[in-house]
């Protein structure tokens, strides 16, 4: 949709801010250690856990998205909004929330014990998968739900009047849509999970669960072996790009034709279907909501007593988030193409540690890196959110083009008119979701500020870590609640704006 020159500028920009930092780190080559057997087993484990996490999140998201797409009940919109939340928590907060439910003294184990049943341990590969599904199920559900909303309603009506069985409806109508949406959802989740480290280690239960990101961290902080870090970072990036490329090959475009772009009421569903949908939604809500609820409640009472620096940090985080949101949407809108999707994946394909250090090295000859730490944080947050924004916007844009391009040509519509009357009203809903996600992601991100911040420029997640680091667990809990309220609040506002009149 954007002019070619804008696309080129956006592509060059991303390339510069992803590839160059990697090269900058590589040039520091002071390496002595080559990759050992431990690194290769880390690579295998990384691929294993990331693939399983991606597949399970998407498989579970299908029934949930389906239930949400057709069920009509009070609070449905609220639930769909809630579904944005877990994805955007700082990992340490999410871990503590999950432990409160699934841990040794968590609700489930206490329940099992009171029933006289044996305990259950969260630690192991299943614990990692549980956490990754917790983070990514909502995202996958929302992406697939957007796909469901692009199915022309006429097609569903046709299936109704032809009295399709659920199986044939799935095969003929839903599966073709899923085939276009799932591959890209799989890729983003796979790529996010590739760089998982804190979660993988803590819930994996020990060094069996070593990921590449840990090896990068170790090379950086303890071995000062920057070449090795860059090589490992490059491996991570190649994996991500390979996944993104594969997804493009398998993601076929929907060829079943177009609809009239209107809402049709289908009458009520059979009662058994309502029950199944209700159960699916309830289960998902409990799984996703309970840990969040416990985090929120745990710190709610300490929020009011948080000292001024925390509020200043919160303000800083919000401002960064708003900046990142604007920039991210701007770039995303110019990357709504097949190659754009791969390019956008680069943003999360490089380890944040490598990216941050590389940017630091690049900036140093020109400016004092401390002075621009907030700007760099904003930029990195933008890059991080880009793959999601592009994936959220692109399916809708494809539908808009397929549905209205010919009509608008026939009407001789101006470019401005096309944007104002055709694209804008339809793109608004995914745009609101993408904006909400970017803002929330940015508020919750610890990111590069931890690498080269200083006391006067700390963000809210950094403050949370500082509090925990100096034993102040109670205030940290308050800080976590505040963070949750803020990131969810901004997600809510943007998403509301997108869904209004939609």
């Amino acid at each position, binding site marked *: 949709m954007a002019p070619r020159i804008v696309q080129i500028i956006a592509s060059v920009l991303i390339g510069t801010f992803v590839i160059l930092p990697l090269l900058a780190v590589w040039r520091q080559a002071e390496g002595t250690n080559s990759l050992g057997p431990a690194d290769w087993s880390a690579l295998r484990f990384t691929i294993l856990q990331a693939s399983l996490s991606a597949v399970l999140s998407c498989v579970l998201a299908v029934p949930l998205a389906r239930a949400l797409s057709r069920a009509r009940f009070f609070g449905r919109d609220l639930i769909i909004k809630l579904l944005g939340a877990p994805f955007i928590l700082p990992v340490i907060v999410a871990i503590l929330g999950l432990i409160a439910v699934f841990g040794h003294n968590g609700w489930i184990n206490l329940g099992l014990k009171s029933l006289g049943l044996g305990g259950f341990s969260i630690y192991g590969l299943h614990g990692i998968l549980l956490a990754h599904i917790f983070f990514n199920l909502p995202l996958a559900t929302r992406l697939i739900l957007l796909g469901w909303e692009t199915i022309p309603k006429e097609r569903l009506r046709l299936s109704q009047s032809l009295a399709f069985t659920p199986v044939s409806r799935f095969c003929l109508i839903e599966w073709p849509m899923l085939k276009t949406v799932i591959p890209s959802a799989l890729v983003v989740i796979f790529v996010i999970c590739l760089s998982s480290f804190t979660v993988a280690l803590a819930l994996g239960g020990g060094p*069996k669960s070593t990921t590449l990101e840990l090896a990068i961290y170790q090379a950086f902080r303890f071995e000062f072996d920057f070449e090795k870090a860059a090589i490992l970072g490059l491996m991570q990036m190649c994996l991500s790009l390979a996944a993104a490329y594969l997804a493009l090959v398998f993601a076929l475009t929907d060829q079943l034709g177009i609809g009239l772009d209107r809402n049709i009421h289908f009458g009520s569903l059979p009662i058994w279907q309502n029950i199944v949908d209700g159960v699916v939604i309830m289960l998902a809500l409990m799984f996703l909501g309970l840990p969040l609820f416990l985090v929120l409640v745990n710190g709610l009472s300490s929020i009011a007593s948080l000292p001024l620096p925390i509020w200043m940090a919160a303000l800083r985080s919000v401002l960064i988030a708003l900046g990142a949101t604007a920039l991210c949407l701007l770039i995303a809108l110019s990357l709504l193409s097949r190659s754009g999707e791969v390019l956008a994946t680069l943003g999360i394909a490089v380890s944040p540690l490598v990216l941050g250090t590389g940017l630091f090295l690049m900036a140093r000859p020109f400016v004092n890196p401390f002075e621009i730490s907030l700007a760099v944080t904003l930029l990195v947050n933008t890059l991080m959110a880009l793959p999601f924004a592009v994936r959220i916007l692109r399916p809708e844009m494809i539908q808009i083009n397929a549905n209205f391009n010919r009509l608008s040509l026939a009407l001789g519509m101006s470019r401005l008119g096309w944007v104002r009357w055709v694209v804008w009203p339809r793109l608004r809903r995914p745009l609101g979701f993408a904006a909400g996600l970017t803002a929330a992601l940015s508020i919750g991100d610890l990111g590069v500020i931890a690498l080269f911040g200083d006391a006067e420029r700390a963000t809210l997640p950094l403050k949370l870590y500082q509090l925990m680091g100096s034993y102040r667990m109670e205030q940290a809990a308050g800080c976590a609640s505040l963070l949750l309220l803020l990131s969810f609040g901004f997600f809510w506002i943007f998403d509301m704006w997108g869904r209004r009149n939609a």
Partner: protein
Amino acid sequence: MKYFTFAAGLLSASMTLAQTPTLIIYAPDYFASEWGPGPSIEAAFEESCSCDLQFKTGDVLSRIILEGANTQADVVIGFNTDVTKKARETGLFVAHGQDNAQLTLPIDWSDDVFLPFNYSHTAFIYNTEKVSNPPSSFDELVNSNTELSLVIQDPRSSISGLALVLWVKAIYGDQAEAVWEKLAPKILTVTKGWSESYGLFSEGEADMVLSYTTSPAYHIMVEGDLSKKAVIFPEGHYFMVELAAKVANTDMPELADAFLGFIMTERFQKLIPEGNWSLPAALPKSQWPRAFQELPLPEKVLFYSEQQAASLRKDTIEEWRRALSK
């Protein structure tokens, strides 16, 4: 008009600021945050130096190595003995010029580049309300059949985790790997850093957490909570010390020297216990806060020199990894 006066005021304030010399100190995040000792140390030093002290936080040594001789830092604070060998080899640091005889450490210290400012020991912390009979020795911890669960830190990503594997090595030598295999079923999980571990322990997820002998002091002094205790083992505890050093290329050599001198003063040392929850490196025990004086501390202190630690590091981590991966 009001705004104009305000802006003019700001401008002149920043101009006077520009004339005072600035001392830049690289420090870890926990040190310089509002909840660390940084701010009160800054205020105390600025009273006498007629300078502006600024803490810059982050990964101190990684950053200095990346910056090389062009670094802005005049002084660094917060190094650990596990990285001093690497730091020394960079040649970026010069002698601290202080008299090591002033130190009150439980071990001899003769390093003339890295100056200790506080110390502690590795220890397992437990909650007396949950664990009634903690192990009385490391041997008992390893061999007991009671169901104690531990959270520890990963030696590949955390300083305290590394200290733990060196601790086990110092006690058990060649038997270290076998000891880790016995400990493995008791280890609930391993975390990236200290904060995650301590968070899990605080939530009641594990019985004991790898932390420091000084950790209970926080709970006693701030929360009035006497239930968190360190178990003291007769086999000894691993010594952990934090260090400061002067950057060779500093453009403020006198100020840097003045700061290193300040570290050894009573004023600085008295800010340490309640600021960093550690033991001051140059202050007699009688001058510690009472809660610190009453802390149970190990009689035997284990410590590897930086050379020994560096040569042992790779193998001990590998032993740990093998034993816990089974």
